[in-house]
């Protein structure tokens, strides 16, 4: 115990230990925060995508990057009918409603999309709406009218006839300054969408949400399914740490026990373990994992099991064996046999603890290799299909040609987190190696 404390005290002399530990602590803090702030089931639900994200823009970059680069890209504006001055008049068998949704638009770039979400209540028949767009200059552009279902979405920016009339996509055309020729420039000021609705029913009501989608969103941006990448970046942390740690623990423990068993019993047991190891070392890990992944990539814990199973007879056995062979002959083990300690006790309590301090650095540096392995599998499309992970984000980015399309943030953020994880554990592990393997100690 005291030896460990001394070791830890000595660690403070190594800047890389402090740096690595800081990174690890940061990642752990993020993990804890994430697991508390976004419970597991909620994270899965969110990552499944769909309606939850309907008010998020598609492929929007991080806000802070844009602002840092001196940009003024719009973020998303939502205008709700609850806040608008609704006027309504009853007629026989229904109501006529006018909702003006107005908002300020101060940005010098166009929004990426415009949608209007409508919800009618207590109607006897489908309601009818007619939309008009009012620019800051006071020009009125009719957007047409249509029947709406109980819950409906009017994709203004997808309106083909409007696009034909404006000569450009509606989310550009509706904001462009009419006088300018050449490159369209957005007009700043107060815009208004006027909804005239006819509702059939005594108590019928209408709620409307106008969403003017921006081009930047939040800290991490969004992906092609409008999902906030933050969810995956956050949840990727505990998943990566848990996977790396469990895989490292699992393979180290099984490998150690098997190596020690072989060394202790010797003979046929040892020979069998050695031959199995040699065969397993020749087998390339990634292709085997890819194969297994294609067959069974249903969830991450199965992958974890496979990784551990493949790691059991890994090259580590050779290293541990070399370390354990001299210990087998140690007089204290002979003494233990003389007072009646059994095989399991000798292996677990007398042989393995002897080499444990030397293994801790190796163990720490082993964690990120499994983190990377999990990410690589996910990038190859063999990850857990429902869990948000860094590798999954990279996989999506790849299939959506993120780099080709200029969505650098989509690749950089998860890659950076992966690199930080590797760096943190590597720095800490190397410092531990210095402390616990005095042969390497530099004077």
């Amino acid at each position, binding site marked *: 115990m005291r030896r460990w404390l001394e070791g830890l005290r000595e660690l403070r002399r190594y800047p890389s230990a402090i740096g690595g530990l800081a990174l690890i602590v940061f990642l752990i803090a993020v993990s804890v925060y994430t697991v508390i702030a976004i419970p597991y089931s909620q994270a899965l639900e969110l990552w499944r995508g769909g309606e939850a994200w309907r008010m998020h823009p598609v492929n929007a970059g991080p806000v802070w990057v844009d602002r840092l680069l001196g940009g003024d890209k719009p973020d998303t504006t939502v205008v709700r009918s609850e806040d608008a001055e609704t006027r309504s008049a009853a007629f026989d068998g229904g109501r006529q409603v006018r909702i003006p949704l107005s908002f300020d638009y101060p940005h010098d770039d166009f929004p990426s999309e415009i949608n209007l979400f409508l919800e009618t209540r207590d109607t006897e028949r489908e309601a009818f709406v007619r939309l008009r767009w009012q620019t800051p200059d006071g020009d009125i552009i009719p957007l047409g009218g249509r029947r709406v279902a109980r819950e409906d979405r009017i994709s203004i920016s997808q309106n083909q006839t409007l696009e034909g009339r404006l000569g450009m996509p509606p989310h550009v055309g509706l904001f462009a300054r009419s006088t300018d020729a050449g490159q369209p420039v957005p007009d700043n000021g107060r815009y208004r969408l006027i909804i005239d609705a006819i509702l059939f029913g005594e108590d019928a009501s209408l709620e409307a949400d106008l969403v003017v989608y921006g081009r930047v969103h939040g800290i991490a941006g969004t992906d092609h399914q409008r999902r906030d990448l933050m969810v995956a970046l956050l949840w990727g942390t505990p998943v990566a740490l848990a996977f790396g740690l469990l895989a490292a623990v699992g393979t180290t423990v099984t490998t150690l026990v098997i190596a020690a068993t072989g060394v202790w019993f010797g003979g046929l047991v040892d020979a069998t373990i050695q031959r199995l190891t040699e065969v397993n070392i020749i087998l390339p890990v990634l292709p085997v994992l890819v194969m297994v992944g294609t067959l069974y990539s249903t969830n991450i814990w199965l992958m974890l099991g496979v990784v551990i199973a493949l790691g059991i007879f890994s090259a580590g056995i050779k290293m541990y064996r070399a370390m354990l062979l001299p210990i087998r002959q140690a007089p204290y083990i002979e*003494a233990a046999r003389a007072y009646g300690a059994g095989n399991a006790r000798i292996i677990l*309590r007398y042989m393995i603890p002897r080499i444990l301090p030397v293994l801790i650095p190796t163990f720490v540096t082993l964690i990120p290799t499994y983190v990377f392995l999990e990410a690589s599998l996910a990038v190859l499309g063999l990850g857990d299909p429902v869990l948000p992970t860094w590798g999954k984000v990279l996989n999506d980015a790849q299939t959506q040609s993120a780099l080709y399309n200029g969505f650098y943030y989509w690749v950089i953020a998860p890659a950076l987190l992966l690199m930080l994880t590797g760096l943190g554990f590597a720095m800490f592990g190397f410092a531990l190696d210095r402390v616990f393997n005095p042969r390497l100690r530099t004077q």
Partner: protein
Amino acid sequence: MSTERAASAESTSPLVSVRDLRTWFELRQWGFLRVGSVRAVDGVSFDLGRGESVAFVGESGCGKSSLARTLLGLHRPTGGEVSFDGYRVQDLAGRDLQWYRASVGYVQQDPYGALPPFMDVRRILAEPLVVHGVTDRAERERRIRRALEEVRLGPGDAILDQFPHMLSGGQQQRVVIARALVLEPAMIIADEPVSMLDASVRVEILNLLRRIQSERSLTLAFITHDLSTVRHYADRIFVMYAGRIVEQAQVDELLEHPQHPYTQALLAAIADVDAANARRVRDVPAGEPPSLLHPPPGCRFHPRCPHAMAGTCDVRDPGMFEPRRDHLSACWLHER
């Protein structure tokens, strides 16, 4: 079970009785081809009484440690048998084997190597108790403290929390002895317990062993190179040569009237050293020790023996003769 056994033991019968014990190590090539056997122990017979202290002496490689390990059940004997308290040790299994292991304590040569470096003294002394099912923590602590007091390491908690590397060689060997005592054995086997220690603490440790032996009336079998001090710590001596016992007698009898030419050479060597006051102990009589792989025919000592009789010593194995009362020697010179 152990109490039943203790009750059944008759105090007059020998505690240990060894008959024609052989421990051969097979030499194999490529892991399976037998190319011969190292006959480390080759036909050894003796009895040890209760509360008796005996010494095994002999030059390096004559099989002393192999004999000790075979007695401890660490090597399976190739032939012959060891009886302990009337039970054939080879037949013991399960709980009976554990009883035997608790009954025989082991003190090794290298005290630092004999202690697991990652355990503190408390843990080291608790281990045998845990192995033998003493689950009660307070009981363990009590027995640990008693053992420590017996080896003069207590009282006081300080030592219990120390790790082996923090202790001096003498303290380490005391811990080793305490570990051998903690199960309250009937016999202790000490394999060169002081040869790796500083000269200044050797006498202390030997006195300690002797005192514990007489206080607990233990059977103490210790292996030594050092014939000059053996008289103070042993009642009887067994002289070993090339896997066999060549001479045995009470200490004073043997030292004053050595019968076997090998013993005589050993004692002469000590006299030489004393006279020259030399530092290097030349305890080996002239000539090479024989190969245990291909031991010489007849008496194993004959190639080095000044009295070798051609036609007898190099042909026939000598049996045990009794040239003097209670003094056995395996030499054709003493054939009557």
